[in-house]
Structure formats: structure tokens, C-alpha cells
């Protein structure tokens, strides 16, 4: 029999298997889970950013009809609820007592001070208004640079200068010398403004306790349910892990904001057990603004040195990172190991030194938001490169091109600890310039300026680091967790397959991409494969999905299990075929004897034989199942070049994004349709940081952009369609050769757009403006430039 040609699925744009339920309204998001007898929690929140709690009088709320209970922070503390720990420690780090509900002091506006539980969400909300909060206002500091000044109001008594940590990376002496000897040192002062993830599904949690089995089940909007279970069970609530089940069903977007263990879900889990009824909480959008961990918020002083020929000589960066009022789960890692280590970018920089101060303020805590540290690093480099190009009188594309690391230098050891796995940077830059028609654009731009139209083009050459690993290394750097992933392939007697993955999909389409891997690996149809994720009751263990790690780490774990299944199947098939195992090969779903393809067994026949166990090789156990944990030897490093083309209306200050070109290299691709979708979404978020989004606080610590009216989430009519292409440089770090695509767009696009706007404004002599480049800010800058001209 000739070997059947089976079409490979990996690499194909296959329609998503998860979509039928979403397009028919049959997805199951946390708030869609309904349990009989469910009570609803509503949190009373502080309207002050810093205050001493004198008294919380809950008596009137308690007496309200339909209210089951009202608890304060003291009640939870007395009830055995511990603070939420931090998951990444740095030397000298000052930790915080981060409570689900504030006990004696509130440190940001929106911090919970009491929780009301009632028969309905509406009753809980009504009764919350009856809670009398007596507190004493204390002085506030919201700006991280101001918080470091002597005499600034203190956030935590344990951090007498509001400094949580000071961290350095790179060679200071070498960098000092390099900058001293440089022909030109370009300096920038850059603010990377604070952002709010705003996944469209608000956070939610539902907990139910079964006294008969002592099992507590928590449905929660989590990107990593096993991490939730471990931290909540072992540290916060003291629950036995084996009877604590965390289910993260369909999750409506995460972007980092659903990684962390939050006060509300801790409280809900505790309440369900305490009260013996299911308890649900679903955030209102206003709570997403006040109680979801926020992102970015850096202020950096940058010095970039060049030799006389425009070659990079050194880079010094000093950054103040605002951490907010408490240390969220991975907060210390984001402005350090995910930021300072990325400052090498795509360039050959002989000396780099970076120091970072992590600072407490009276604002919502800051943690990972899509890109997490890497967009901040990319912005520092790519914005400064453009300023440098202007100061050096060089073309910005040419300045970048001449400083790229050449393709023969991989693996490349950077000056800031990382070793880049593989790369070939020049083709992506060349392709992006070709797609945008770079020379033609410059001519159009010059011509448009003569007619009072201001066009601008901005470049961004980015690198990303995905799949944070290996565990041993991250452990030595302070991680309180391993960063591997698990993947179980369970073959049923009929040859159908269930895959249990520790990765979690909240839009990434794992049910499709992982099925493609498995169907190809075992030579079976995708419809024979079921992918299970998001349930600690079904999946052995998992670290979840963030940092663009699922394909590279989770996918590889599944791939490893497939190899184990095939190997066991091969030995069993050989036994059944009375052949030597080495003479049996597996191809296209069939085990057969080499040279005599007619002698063979299908995958389903071997699966059945493994479970019948009537005829097994000596010593082989029945069954066909494998679990693997993949702990990668290194990160993967996707890269690329993005180019934005804008027009700025200088009479209104309004920027229109005319074109967006992205050439990305994410290594091998399992499903190009899904990869492109990831890039599109990332680009939109990064564009929005450049032009519209900002979490702004006033001096008293009130978030002044606390609604979707005030915070500039991008809408369809503000964006163009994107022009994308790829180069492919496989990663040697994992068997699939994949790198990761989830954050690339967000990392690259912010500086591309910022550079484009400032390129458009070049005729006005405007060197730099901080983000977001709103019409008001641009208009003011143009007005100021014109009035200077007139003087």
C-alpha cells in the first residue's frame, strides 16, 4: 500500500475551532456561569487616595433587606486571610502588606474598604451606599519622581524614601568610558505613560463551597488558573490545593491584566466558604479602571553615544518606575528583567548600563500589560534613535541599518545578560522600507509640505523576548515560580485524543493551533482532538499564558508528549506486527514495517491494543498517555520593523494614521491567520498608546481618565487596515522553531507612530513631545513653535 499523502496542517490558515460557540453566543465566560442560590458581592471603595481608616460602620448596610453579610478588612484578617504575596523578589526589595480589603489605611483611590453580600447585585450595590466610612485624609503623592524627593508623603512606613528597589544591569564603568569617548552623545528625557489594559470582559469571579467534600471551586477570569490556585491556596487563604479547584473558562481578553491574584477574587473565595453559599462578583467598567493592575509608567533619562561615523558607542539609561501603592504579583520583574535586559535592541551596542528605581505612589498598582517592560525598552531605543538621526543629520532608516547586529553573529551575547537565539534583522527592515515605498514617500512628504500638509513617517526596529526561561535561571533572578509548561496527550482506546495543556487561551486560539500540532503529529483529523485548558481539576499543572509563551513553551510540551506517544506506539506496533521496533516507522497516522508498507497498524488500532492489553511487549504498561514539562533552555527573540505613516492637521493638532506597515519575524508559524490577528491587535494597542491612551491622575490621586469616555481606547474609525508581511528565522530553542507573536505589535508600534508624528512636525522645530500625542498637545506645541517663530 502506498503511503497516504496527508496534508500538513501546521502552517495553514485554518479557521478556528472555538469560533462557532462565540459567534452563536454560546461561549461561557465567568459571569455566564449561573449557580442556584448565588449571592452577589459589591465592594465599597475608598474615594480618597491616602487615608487612615478610623471606623467602618456596616450596621445600616447589614440591616438592609436582602443583605446576607457585610465584612471589613479587619474581618477578613481575623478570619485568616493573609496578604497577597509578590512573586518576584529582587535584592533589598521592600515588600508590601497587600490586603484583599484595607485594614487600617487606604493607599489608592478605589481600594476596597468593605464588601457587601446580598441576594442580588442590585441589592448589594444599594446597601453598599449605607456603609459609613470614617477616615482621615493623609497627604498624597502620585508622581514617582516626586515620591523620591525628601519630604514626600510616604506610602509605606517600611520604605522610608518610597523606594521599593534599586536595580542595575550592564557595565557602568565601560559605559561611562564609552560615552566620554563618544563623538556625539544624544540625550532624551522620555515618559512612558501609564496605561490600563481594558480587556472588554471585565474581571469576574464566582466561588462555591461543597461542605460534603470540602471542595472549594472558583471560576475566575485568569490567564493562569494553576498560579491562582497555588498562590491563593498556599499563601493567602490556607486552602488545601487538592480540594481547591480553579476554573478559568472562556476569558474575554487578558493582555496581562488577568495574570495576577486580585483582592476581589480572594474575598469571593473566602466569602463562599464563610457563608456557605455561592458568591459572585463581576466588575463594573469603573472598577476595571480603579482596581485592575495598570501598566508602564516610566520616566527615563537616556544618553546614547555614537562615534564620528554614526556607529553606536554606548547607552546609559536611568529609569524611575512607578509601582503604585502595592506590589502586584510580578511587578518587580517588569521594569527590571523584562526591561533593562531588552535595551540592547537589534543593535550592536558595545556598552550599556541601566539603573532602575522602583517607587511606591498613591496610585493603582502597576504590573505587566501587553509587552510588559519590552515596549518601554523599545520606546527608549527607537525614540532616541530618531532624535539621534535628526541631531546627526542622518537618515533614520540608514542609522538603524548600519547599527543592526549582522546575521553571522548568532547566538548573540548582549551587554545586558541575554543571548539572542537567532536573527536576521536587515531583511525585515529592507522589506518594510520597500513596502512603504520609502524614497517615494520622502518626495511626497517634501511636496506636501509646500502645500501646508504635514506628513510623517516613523520607523521602529524591535526585539521581543518570549517564553521567559529557563526555570533555574529565573529562580536565580528572583522568580518565585518555575517558568516551564505542561502538556498531556491522552489517547483514548478509539484513537481519539484529549490534550490537557497548562497554557490558557483568552483569544489566542489554542484549541485550533494545538489541534493542528497534534493532528499533524499523530496523523489524525483535527476533529479527533480535544484541547482542554483552564481547569486545575482536569489539567495536571500549568504556568498559563503571558509573555507570548504558549506556542514556544506550551506547544513544545505537547510536541514532546506526542513523541512519547509515538515511541510507545511504535514499540507496541512492532510487537503486534512481529517486527523489530527499529524496523517500524510511523507516518501519516500509520505504523508500518520499513520496506513492507502493507504490514502495518493504524494509530487507532494501536491505541485500542494499548488499552485491551491482550498482547503487550514484556514490561510495557497498558494505556497510551504521556505528560511532558518543557523548560526551555532560553528565551526566544522575535523581531521586525514597523513603519507608520501619518498626517498631522496642524490647525487642529489631530493625527491621522494613514498607513501602517509591519514586517515581523516570529520564527515558524503554526497558523498564519492567527499570528496576523495577534499582530493586528497588538499594533492597535501600541498605536493607541502613542496617540490616545493615558491613565492620568490629578494631584489628589484621583484617576481623571476613569471611564471609556475619558480613556482613549481605539475605535474602528481611528485606525487603518494594516499591511503585514513576515520573514522566517526559526528559533533553535524549541523543537517547533516558533518564537511568539502575542506582544510584537504592541512593542513595535508605539515608537513607530510617535516617530511619525514628530517627523511630521519637524518643520516646526519640535524635537520631542511626550505621549500620548493628543490633538491638544500637538496643537499647543505647534502654536508655541509658531509664536517663537514670530518673535
Amino acid at each position, binding site marked *: 500500500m502506498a503511503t497516504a499523502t496527508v496534508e500538513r496542517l501546521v502552517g495553514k490558515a485554518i479557521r478556528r475551532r472555538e469560533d462557532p460557540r462565540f459567534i452563536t453566543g454560546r461561549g461561557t465566560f465567568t459571569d455566564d456561569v449561573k449557580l442556584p442560590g448565588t449571592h452577589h458581592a459589591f465592594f465599597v471603595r475608598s474615594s480618597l487616595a491616602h487615608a487612615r481608616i478610623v471606623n467602618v460602620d456596616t450596621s445600616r448596610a447589614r440591616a438592609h433587606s436582602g443583605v446576607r453579610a457585610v465584612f471589613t478588612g479587619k474581618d477578613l484578617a481575623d478570619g485568616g486571610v493573609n496578604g497577597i504575596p509578590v512573586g518576584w523578589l529582587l535584592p533589598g526589595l521592600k515588600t508590601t502588606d497587600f490586603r484583599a480589603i484595607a485594614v487600617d489605611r487606604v493607599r489608592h483611590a478605589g481600594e476596597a474598604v468593605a464588601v457587601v453580600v446580598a441576594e442580588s447585585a442590585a441589592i448589594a450595590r444599594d446597601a453598599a451606599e449605607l456603609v459609613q466610612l470614617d477616615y482621615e485624609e493623609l497627604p498624597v503623592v502620585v508622581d514617582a519622581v516626586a515620591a523620591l524627593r525628601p519630604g514626600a508623603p510616604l506610602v509605606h512606613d517600611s520604605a522610608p524614601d518610597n523606594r521599593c528597589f534599586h536595580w542595575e544591569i550592564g557595565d557602568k564603568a565601560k559605559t561611562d568610558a564609552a560615552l566620554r569617548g563618544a563623538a556625539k552623545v544624544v540625550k532624551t528625557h522620555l515618559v512612558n505613560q501609564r496605561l490600563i489594559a481594558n480587556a*472588554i470582559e471585565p474581571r469576574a469571579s464566582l466561588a462555591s463551597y461543597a461542605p460534603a467534600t470540602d471542595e472549594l471551586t472558583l471560576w475566575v477570569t485568569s490567564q493562569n488558573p494553576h498560579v491562582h490556585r497555588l498562590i491563593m491556596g498556599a499563601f493567602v487563604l490556607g486552602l488545601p490545593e487538592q480540594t481547591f479547584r480553579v476554573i478559568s473558562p472562556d476569558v474575554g481578553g487578558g493582555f496581562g491584566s488577568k495574570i495576577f491574584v486580585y483582592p476581589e477574587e480572594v474575598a469571593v473565595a473566602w466569602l463562599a466558604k464563610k457563608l456557605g453559599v455561592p458568591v459572585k462578583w463581576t466588575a463594573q*467598567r469603573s472598577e476595571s479602571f480603579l482596581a485592575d493592575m495598570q501598566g508602564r509608567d516610566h520616566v527615563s533619562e537616556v544618553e546614547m553615544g555614537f562615534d564620528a561615523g554614526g556607529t553606536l558607542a554606548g547607552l546609559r539609561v536611568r529609569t524611575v518606575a512607578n509601582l503604585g501603592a502595592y506590589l502586584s504579583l510580578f511587578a518587580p520583574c517588569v521594569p527590571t528583567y523584562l526591561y533593562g535586559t531588552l535595551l540592547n535592541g537589534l543593535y550592536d551596542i558595545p556598552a550599556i548600563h541601566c539603573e532602575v528605581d522602583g517607587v511606591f505612589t498613591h496610585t493603582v498598582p502597576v504590573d505587566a500589560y501587553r509587552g510588559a517592560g519590552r515596549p518601554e525598552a523599545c520606546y527608549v531605543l527607537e525614540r532616541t534613535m530618531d532624535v539621534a538621526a535628526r541631531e546627526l543629520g542622518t537618515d533614520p532608516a540608514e542609522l538603524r541599518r548600519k547599527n543592526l547586529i549582522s546575521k553571522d553573529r548568532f547566538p548573540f551575547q548582549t551587554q545586558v545578560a541575554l543571548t539572542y537565539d537567532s536573527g536576521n534583522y536587515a531583511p525585515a527592515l529592507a522589506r518594510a522600507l520597500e513596502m512603504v515605498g520609502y524614497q517615494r514617500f520622502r518626495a511626497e512628504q517634501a511636496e506636501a509640505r509646500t502645500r501646508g500638509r504635514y506628513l510623517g513617517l516613523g520607523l521602529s526596529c524591535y526585539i521581543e523576548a518570549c517564553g521567559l526561561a529557563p526555570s533555574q535561571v529565573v529562580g536565580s533572578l528572583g522568580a518565585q515560580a518555575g517558568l516551564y509548561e505542561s502538556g498531556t496527550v491522552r489517547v483514548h482506546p478509539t484513537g481519539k485524543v484529549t490534550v490537557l495543556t497548562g497554557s490558557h487561551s483568552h483569544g489566542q486560539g489554542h484549541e485550533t493551533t494545538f489541534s493542528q500540532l497534534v493532528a499533524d503529529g499523530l496523523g489524525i483529523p483535527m476533529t479527533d482532538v480535544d484541547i482542554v485548558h483552564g481547569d486545575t481539576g482536569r489539567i495536571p499543572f500549568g504556568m498559563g499564558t503571558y509573555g507570548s509563551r504558549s506556542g514556544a513553551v506550551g506547544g513544545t510540551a505537547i510536541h514532546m508528549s506526542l513523541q512519547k506517544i509515538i515511541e510507545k506506539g511504535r514499540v507496541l506496533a512492532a510487537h503486534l506486527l512481529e517486527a523489530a521496533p527499529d524496523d517500524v516507522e510511523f507516518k501519516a497516522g500509520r505504523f508500518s514495517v520499513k520496506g513492507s508498507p502493507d504490514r502495518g497498524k493504524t494509530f487507532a488500532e494501536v491505541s485500542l491494543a494499548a488499552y485491551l492489553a491482550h498482547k503487550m511487549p514484556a514490561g510495557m504498561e497498558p494505556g497510551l498517555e504521556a505528560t511532558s514539562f518543557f523548560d526551555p533552555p532560553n528565551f526566544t527573540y522575535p523581531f521586525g520593523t514597523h513603519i507608520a505613516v501619518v498626517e498631522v492637521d496642524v490647525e487642529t493638532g489631530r493625527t491621522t494614521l494613514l498607513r501602517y506597515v509591519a514586517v515581523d519575524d516570529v520564527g515558524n508559524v503554526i497558523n498564519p491567520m492567527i499570528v496576523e490577528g495577534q499582530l493586528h491587535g497588538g499594533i492597535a494597542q501600541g498605536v493607541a498608546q502613542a496617540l490616545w491612551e493615558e491613565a492620568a491622575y490629578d494631584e489628589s490621586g484621583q484617576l481623571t481618565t476613569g471611564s*471609556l469616555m475619558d480613556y482613549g481606547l481605539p475605535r474602528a474609525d481611528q485606525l487603518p487596515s494594516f499591511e503585514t508581511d513576515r520573514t522566517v528565522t526559526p528559533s533553535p530553542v524549541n523543537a517547533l522553531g516558533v518564537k511568539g507573536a502575542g506582544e510584537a505589535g504592541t512593542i513595535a508600534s508605539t515608537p513607530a507612530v510617535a516617530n511619525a508624528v514628530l517627523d511630521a512636525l519637524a518643520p516646526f522645530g519640535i524635537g520631542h513631545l511626550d505621549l500620548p500625542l493628543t490633538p491638544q498637545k500637538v496643537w499647543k506645541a505647534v502654536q508655541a513653535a509658531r509664536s517663537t517663530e514670530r518673535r
Partner: protein
Amino acid sequence: MARISVKVNGTQQSHEVEPRQLLVHYLRDVLGLTGTHVGCDTSQCGSCTVMLDGHSVKSCTLFTVQADGSEVVTIEGLASGSKLHPVQESFWEEHGLQCGFCTPGVILSTVGLLRENPDPDERAIRAGIEGNLCRCTGYHNIVKAVRSAAKKLAGAPAGTAPTRGT
């Protein structure tokens, strides 16, 4: 409490409701139609969009009592049995969704848009769906899906296009 009578996805419903109850909560909590989502409570995000008497509306902006005597189609009622509505098909084919949370609202807004303008260009599509926030797709593939749906609906022979909700 007030008694209301409303036809939802072809079935006549009648319930006593609180006057302050929003239509979206009636659909989700009383009728169990959880495909209609709440993303913002403030009529900004459009995740709760449904068809009310043939027009797409944000169901968090209406009290249930305002829908008394009306006909509502939610995402659960858009397909004809197992046959997907062309807009649903297009969103699937063009990868017009990722996490799927905003999707029911975007699909119903699209149904409303194409009813008013059967052949919108990209600018009209983007203007037509700007009331729906999507944080995953950057709208790129949503725009493609709407174009594709417009073509499908235009190409459908008379009498075979699904009528419910359009």
C-alpha cells in the same frame, strides 16, 4: 414591579420586572441568554448590542419596560437553526474575533449596519461599527468580515437570505 411582554428570538415572553432593570439583565438573568455581554455599563463598548424591532441597539441603554411589546433578536437567535447567518459565517471565515467577548455585539451591529447600507466601503464600515469596542483584533479582520458579509448578502438569491433580525 411591571409586567412586560416581549418577543425574543421568536418566542413570546411575559414577566414581572423591576422598573429599573436594564434590558441586558433581563436577557441574561431572566431568560438565560448569556450571549449578550456587559462590557462597560455605560453604553460605550457595544458588547450588549441586540436587534430591537430590526434596529441594532445597546441593551444596557434600555430598561426592560421600554422593550414592552417589541421584538428582540439576540446572538442566540441570529442563525436559522444550524445554518449560520452570513454575518456569523463571515466573522468565522475572516478571523473577525479572538476572545469572542465583544463578538455578539459586533455581529449584531453589523447586521444593523448592512440593513441600512448593504454595500459599505471601508470608511463606512469603520464609521458604522465605531460604537463597538474590540480590544483584540485592531478591527482589521472585523472590517474584512463586514465586507465579506455584505458580498454574501448581496449575492444571496432573493428569498433565501435569512430574514430574522434583518
